[in-house]
C-alpha cells in the first residue's frame, strides 16, 4: 500500500501537467472541496484510482491523437476536388500485412492496460484491514443513511464522522455496507470509489483521509423518488475532535424540564414509532436516530440546513424540502410543532 501511494503521487505530478495541457480539470487542491471531484483525491483508494486514471487517460489520449489525426488527414487530403468526377480512384480491396499490424498493436495496449488495472483492483479491494481500523456499519434507507459504530456504541445518521489517518498512526475507516430496503450506493468521490449497498448482499469498503474537513457525496444508485436528496457528509476530524465527538455521542439525552411539554408530545405521537432518543421510551428504528440531532448540520439527509426554521417546516411537513420522503406530515397543531421543536433543540 505504501508503495502504491508513492507511485501514484509521482504519477499525479506528471498528470497535473498533462491535465492542464488539455485544460480538463479544475485546480487540484489537496483536502476537502465543495465540488466532489474525482480528480481531487484525499484518501488512498481515491489516490490510487486517480493515478491509474491519469495513466489510462495518457494512453487513450495518445490513441485519440493518432486516430483522429489520421481521420482528419484523410478528410482533408482525399476530399473530392474539381470536375474529374468521371474517374473513379484506384480500387484497393485490403492488405493482410496492414490488418495484422493494426490488430497486434491494440492487443499489446490491452495487455498493458489490463495488467495495470488488475494491480490496482487487488491493491484496493484486497487490502488487509489493520487492527487500528475504525469499523462503521453503513445502512442505506429510502432516503437516508444510518451509521453505526458497533465498538463505540454510537448510532447516528447522514453525517459520518471519522478520524483523520496519519502516516505514523494510520486509522482507516472500514465501512460495512448494508441496506434496509432497496439498492443504494455510497459515493464520496474525494475519498474512494463507490460501493453499492444491496439487501442480502453485504459489502465492504475503506477510506483513510489525511486532511480534516468536510467531504461531500451522495447516493449513486437510483433508489426511488428522493434518490436525489440522499446526500452524504463525511466529517474527517482531528483525533481530538473525534474523541470529543465520540464522547458527546455516547451520552444519553439530557432531561431538560423546559422541554417537558415537547417531550410529552413527541412520546405520545407517532414519532417514537420511527425515531430513537436514547434514554427515553422512543425506540423506533425506521427513521434516523435523533439522540444527538442538534450535533448535525443538516436535516433530511442534507435536504436542508439544521436551523430552527427549517426544522419547524420539516416537522410540519417534510415534503417542503423533500417531497416523497417517507416521514409523513403528522397534522400537528402549530403549538405542538413548537413544543416538539423546543424538545428537539435540547438533543445536543
Amino acid at each position: 500500500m505504501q508503495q502504491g501511494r508513492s507511485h501514484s503521487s509521482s504519477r499525479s505530478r506528471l498528470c497535473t501537467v498533462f491535465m492542464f495541457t488539455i485544460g480538463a480539470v479544475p485546480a487540484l487542491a489537496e483536502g476537502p472541496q465543495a465540488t466532489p471531484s474525482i480528480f481531487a483525491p484525499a484518501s488512498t483508494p481515491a489516490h490510487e484510482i486517480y493515478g491509474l486514471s491519469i495513466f489510462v487517460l495518457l494512453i487513450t489520449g495518445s490513441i485519440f491523437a493518432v486516430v483522429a489525426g489520421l481521420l482528419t488527414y484523410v478528410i482533408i487530403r482525399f476530399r473530392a476536388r474539381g470536375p474529374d468526377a468521371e474517374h473513379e480512384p484506384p480500387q484497393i480491396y485490403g492488405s493482410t500485412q496492414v490488418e495484422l499490424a493494426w490488430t497486434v498493436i491494440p492487443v499489446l495496449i490491452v495487455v498493458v492496460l489490463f495488467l495495470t488495472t488488475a494491480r490496482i483492483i487487488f491493491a484496493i479491494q484486497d487490502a488487509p484491514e489493520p487492527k487500528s481500523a475504525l469499523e462503521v456499519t453503513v445502512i442505506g434507507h429510502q432516503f437516508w443513511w444510518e451509521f453505526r459504530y458497533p465498538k463505540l456504541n454510537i448510532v447516528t445518521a447522514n453525517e459520518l464522522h471519522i478520524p483523520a489517518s496519519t502516516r505514523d498512526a494510520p486509522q482507516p475507516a472500514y465501512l460495512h455496507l448494508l441496506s434496509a430496503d432497496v439498492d443504494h450506493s455510497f459515493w464520496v468521490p474525494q475519498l474512494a470509489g463507490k460501493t453499492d449497498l444491496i439487501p442480502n448482499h453485504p459489502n465492504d469498503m475503506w477510506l483513510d483521509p489525511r486532511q480534516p474537513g468536510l467531504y461531500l457525496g451522495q447516493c449513486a444508485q437510483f433508489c426511488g423518488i428522493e434518490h436525489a436528496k440522499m446526500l452524504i457528509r463525511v466529517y474527517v476530524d482531528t483525533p481530538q475532535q473525534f474523541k470529543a465527538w465520540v464522547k458527546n455521542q455516547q451520552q444519553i439525552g439530557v432531561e431538560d424540564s423546559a422541554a417537558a411539554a415537547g417531550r410529552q408530545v413527541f412520546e405520545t405521537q407517532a414519532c417514537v414509532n420511527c425515531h430513537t432518543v436514547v434514554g427515553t421510551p422512543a425506540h423506533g428504528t425506521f427513521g434516523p436516530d435523533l439522540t444527538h440531532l442538534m450535533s448535525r448540520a443538516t436535516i433530511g439527509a442534507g435536504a436542508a440546513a439544521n436551523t430552527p426554521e427549517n426544522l419547524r417546516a420539516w416537522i410540519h411537513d417534510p415534503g417542503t424540502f423533500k417531497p416523497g420522503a417517507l416521514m409523513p406530515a403528522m397534522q400537528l397543531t402549530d403549538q405542538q410543532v413548537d413544543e416538539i421543536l423546543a424538545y428537539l433543540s435540547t438533543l445536543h
Partner: protein
Amino acid sequence: MADQTLPIPGSLRATPSRGAALLEWLHGWVVTVDHKKLGILYVVYAIFFLLVAGAEALAMRIQLAVPHNHFLGPETYNEFFTMHGTTMVFLVGMPILFGFANYLVPLMVGARDMAFPRLNAFSFWLTAFGGLLLYFSFVGGFGLYGMGAAPDVSWWAYAPLTAKAFSPGHNTDYWALSLIVMGFGTLGAAINTLATAFSMRCRGMTLFRMPLFVWLMVVTSGLTLITITPLTAAQIMLTIDRYLGGHFFDTQAGGSATVWMHFFWIFGHPEVYVLILPAFGIASEVIPVFSRKAIFGYPVMVAASVGIAFVSVTVWAHHMFTIGMTSVSNSFFVLSTMMVGIPTGIKIFNWIATMWGGKIRFATPMLFATAFLFQFLIAGLTGIMLSVAPWDWQLHNSYFVIAHFHYTLTGSFVFCIFAAIYYWYPKATGRMLSERLGKWHFWLFLIGFHITFDTMHFVGILGMPRSIYTYEADRGWNTLNMIISAGGLVQGIAVLVFAWNLIHSYLHGKVAGNDPWDAWTLEWSTPSPPPVYNFAADPVVRSRRPLWDIKHPNDPDWKYEQ
C-alpha cells in the same frame, strides 16, 4: 395486391370518393405484408417515438438547467428518465434497426420479400402495440402517486425497487409486460432477418458476397436472439414475483437483487451492440460509396463484427463493478471488456483505410458517417476508461457514464441512422431529401450534440451522479448543467429541421431516379420506390458490388476480390 391502392392522378378509371380512398389507403398499410411497407412503418414509428423521448429529455434538461428547480417534480422526473431510456432503446433503437433490416435486406440480397412475410407483419404490430401499452401507463397506470403513473423505477429497474413493497400499483407492470410483448416482436423480426439472409439470396450471392450491411444485420439478429431471451425471462420472473408470490428478486423474502442485475445486463450489454452493429453496417455502405472505393478488408470486417458479437456476451458484469464482486471476477470482466476494443479498433482502421486514397464527396449521408467515426472513436476510448474497474468505481452511475453511452447511442447510432435516412430516403420515396436542410440539420445537431455530451463528461468527473432530479447549488455543477441544457435545445431544433425536411422533401423534393448516389449494391438497380415485386427478373451477381461490375465492364470486382 394490397399495395396498388393509391388512386392514380388523372386516371380515367372512376375514382372512389376521397374518404373511401383514404380508408382504402390506410387499410393497405394496416394489412400489408410487404417488407418495404413494414420497413417504412417501423421507421416512421421509431421517428415518432424519437420525438416523444427527445421531448422527455428536453423536459429533464429544463429541470436540471438550474439547481433546486421546480419545473418537474421528483415523480415526473423519475418517470421521464425511466421512459426516456426505455423508449429510446425499445421504441426507437430496436424498431428503426429492424425497419432498415426489413426494407434493405431483401433488396440487397436480391429477394422479393422477407422469408416470412406474415411473421414480419405480426412482429411489427407486436412491437407497435407493446409501445402503446407502455405509453398508455401515462393515462391508465396506477402507481405510488395515483392515476396516470408511468414506470418510474429507471430503465434498468434494479430489484427490489420493482417489488410490490416499493413499487405498488401497476406502473412497473406496464413496463414489464410491454417489454415482454415487444420482446416477442423483436425475436420474430430477428428470426426473419436471419432466415432471409441465409435462404433468400439471389444466384451468385455467396455469404461472402453479401453487402456488409446484411452481414451486420445477421450478426445483430443473432445477438438479439441471445439477449432478448434472458430479458423476457427476467420480466416473467418479475411478474411472478409481483403477482404469484415468487421470490426471485424479492429480497425481503430471501430473493436476490444481484440475480436481477445479472439477467438484466446479460441482456443489457449485448443490447448496446445490437444497436451499434447496424450503425456499423450503415457506415460500411455509406463510406465506400461516398469515398468511391471498395470497402477495405471486407473479410476482416466480417470477422471483426462476428468477433464483437462473441466478446460482447462475456462483458455484462462491467456494469456491476460496484456491487462487490471478488477481485478476480472484476479482473475477468476488465479483460473481456477491453478485448472488445480490438475488433472495434480494427473496424475504425478499415473505414479510414477505405477513405484513404478515395475521392470523398461530403453529401449529407457522408457528413453524418464522418462525424460518426470521430464520435465512435471517443465513445470507444471512454469505454476503455470505464472498463478500468477501479476508475469505474468512481465513474459508474455518474454523468460520465451518461456522456459515454450517449456518445455511442446518439453520437454513433443515431448519427448513422440519420446517414441511412438521407442515403436511402430517395430509394424509399423516389425523392431526394433537401441537401440544404440536411446541412442545417447536420451542423446544428453536431454542435448541439457536442455542447451537451462533451460537457457531461466533466460534470461526471466533478462527482454528479445520474438519475437525480435536482442538485445542490454549491457543488460547482451549475454552469456546466446550464451548458448541457442549452446544447439539448440546439439538438431539439436540429431534429425539428430534420422532421420538416422529411415532410417537405416528400412533397417537393427533387426526383431521385434509380441510383442517385452512383452506388453499387442491388437495391439501386430497382426503380425508386421499388415495385412490390422488387426485381422484375431475379438478379445474378458475381461480386460484392454487382452494380460496379455493370458500370465498369472492363474492370469488374470479381477479377480482384479475394
